[in-house]
């Protein structure tokens, strides 16, 4: 058991099946689909609320998605801890700023990578809320419920992602 937890990686099918079982539990015990992007909107709302509580509470979006530390917000904190445990147990925890794949094409300047990450994050945060979910909320939890919107969203995530990744790195499959 311990040896298994200390392995650097597991089969993607085992990991996927594990996430599938996890979704059973979130539906059964919490009456919720597993999702990640709502927590970011809540975080933005909490920061805005700290600056001006009145203005933030009056915003229609935050009445729909109340900015508070709750189940959804804790999911993100949990992911951080869980990934840290997994990486630490296998000895693969490594502090890095510029991922090697990025550095090979765009160089090792941390500023370039961090600016790219910030811009990509802004687009992603906006797109996730625009579409009503992310790779977990739509891509896994919505598709497994056979939601039409989620299958379309997941397709669009990959169409957009494949196009832009191809523009950045060249279309490897051509």
């Amino acid at each position: 058991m311990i040896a298994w937890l200390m392995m650097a990686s597991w089969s993607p099918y085992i990991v996927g099946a594990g996430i599938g079982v996890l979704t059973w539990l979130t539906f059964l015990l919490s009456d919720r689909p597993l999702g990640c992007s709502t927590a970011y909107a809540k975080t933005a709302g909490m920061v805005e609320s700290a600056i001006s509580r009145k203005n933030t509470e009056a915003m229609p979006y935050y009445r729909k998605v109340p900015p508070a530390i709750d189940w959804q917000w804790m999911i993100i904190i949990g992911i951080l801890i869980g990934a840290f445990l997994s990486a630490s147990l296998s000895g693969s925890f490594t502090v890095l700023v510029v991922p090697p794949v990025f550095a090979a094409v765009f160089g090792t300047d941390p500023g370039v990578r961090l600016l790219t990450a910030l811009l990509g994050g802004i687009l992603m945060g906006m797109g996730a809320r625009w579409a009503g979910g992310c790779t977990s909320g739509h891509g896994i939890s919505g598709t497994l419920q056979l939601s039409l919107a989620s299958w379309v969203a997941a397709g669009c995530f990959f169409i957009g992602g494949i196009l832009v990744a191809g523009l950045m790195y060249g279309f490897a499959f051509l």
Partner: protein
Amino acid sequence: MAFEQLRSDKRTQVVLGLLFGIVFGFLLQKGGVTAYGVIIGQLLLTDHTVIKVMLSAVLVGMIGVYTMKAFGLVRLHYQEGSVGATVIGGLIFGAGFAILGYCPGTAAGAVGAGALDALVGMVGIALGAGAFAHLYPRLERGILRSGAFPAGTIPELLGVRPGIVVVVVALLITGFLYLLEVLGF
């Protein structure tokens, strides 16, 4: 329902959220999908780890959730979509997915595994989500409603029983994953 009390107990739910998150993060890191190179590899179609993880999660999740639903144990929670919300939002997300190289969940996992660029990415995601919250009243009156989808779920769209769609989708996913392995992806 015996679960109602548990589900409405806010304090327990916060703890459950943390526990579910820890398991999710552990699995994501073990699956390798918290690594920038693996996600970009998927978008370049040179590494299919992400799709293998996602489709096996959907396969197992779908069968379990629909079985529990048949026994009246769970409710579904899905949204109605539209071209303006789902397609446009999905494409914006996709562009961000490629530029950041993590998604909202895996970014948190990447930070846990030591990737500091993902932490800046998380700040960006919160900024983007906050910007959307400000644009929401205007978007909600217009683009988000345009081109509403004709149905909420695929079984409704096709007018067939959910059980049949579950079986067909399960076979399609299994067949697709088998094909990926046979073709050596």
